[in-house]
């Protein structure tokens, strides 16, 4: 049975996960770009990403492109499954309430 996830349910983390799940499987998004889309500060995004990484919902990869350091983030299989389960649970709550 689908259940809500405490880590994902926090509003900022929910937005982060929604943005990451919008990408295709295997796609990674740049930290700066994600920060811009979600209109968050460096520190705020970094802190929430750390929580999601600890839960193994996302993977953070640091790399160099054209000699500049870049950080890329992608959602893991576990993260995608948990997120989908969370969404199903939310929909069920609305469905239940309709009865």
């Amino acid at each position, binding site marked *: 049975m689908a259940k809500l996830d405490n880590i994902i*349910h926090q509003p900022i983390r929910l937005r982060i996960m929604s943005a990451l799940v919008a990408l295709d499987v295997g796609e990674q998004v740049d930290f700066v770009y994600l920060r811009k889309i979600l209109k968050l500060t460096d520190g705020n995004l970094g802190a929430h990403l750390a929580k999601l990484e600890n839960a193994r919902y996302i993977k953070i990869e640091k790399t160099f492109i054209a000699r500049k350091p870049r950080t890329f983030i992608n959602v893991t299989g576990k993260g995608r499954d948990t997120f989908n389960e969370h969404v199903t649970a939310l929909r069920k709550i609305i469905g239940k309430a309709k009865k």
Partner: protein
Amino acid sequence: MDISKREAKDSLNQIETATAQTRKSIASNYDSPLLILWGLIWFTGFILTHFFLPWVWLIWMGLCGIGTAVTLLVGWWQFHTGSPVKTPAAEKIGWRIFWFWTLLFVYMFIWLSILKPRHGIQMNAFMCTAIMFAYVVTGLWSKSFYMLWLGLAVTGFTLIGFYFIPPSYYCLWMAPTAGGALFAMGLYMRLRWR
């Protein structure tokens, strides 16, 4: 963990907004510069064709040559300087898109040689609708519905121009409608989807 129906609804709205925003932002990042570029090329091409008809081949070959070169350069630059979204199969997809458009133009010339249009407007309407068909198909494949609607809209403008606008005003009609639609879509994405 228990939450109310209202909280669940708010969460779902947040998810929908963030998902749509991300998809739009990515589409804007890749497509808006090219739509602006090709919108300007089409606009300039049609205006120049109206006023300098004898030079039509030179005008379009020159403008399309510039457009193709800039498009390839933008693609190369995005791939090598690191676009904000890394796709594992980016190189493969890039080549697939390149070959799709190359083959489309090869086939367009084959069809033109078979159909032998009798006048320039026929040929132009054919090329515009063939390119817009590619937009529609790409839009359906990649779920970029703005491309689907843009393709259908420009096809509609081309058909109106072909069937209802006097031939001497065809180019003046196509410049703001077809060229304008591409440019406006690119600009809208740039300003509103980022």
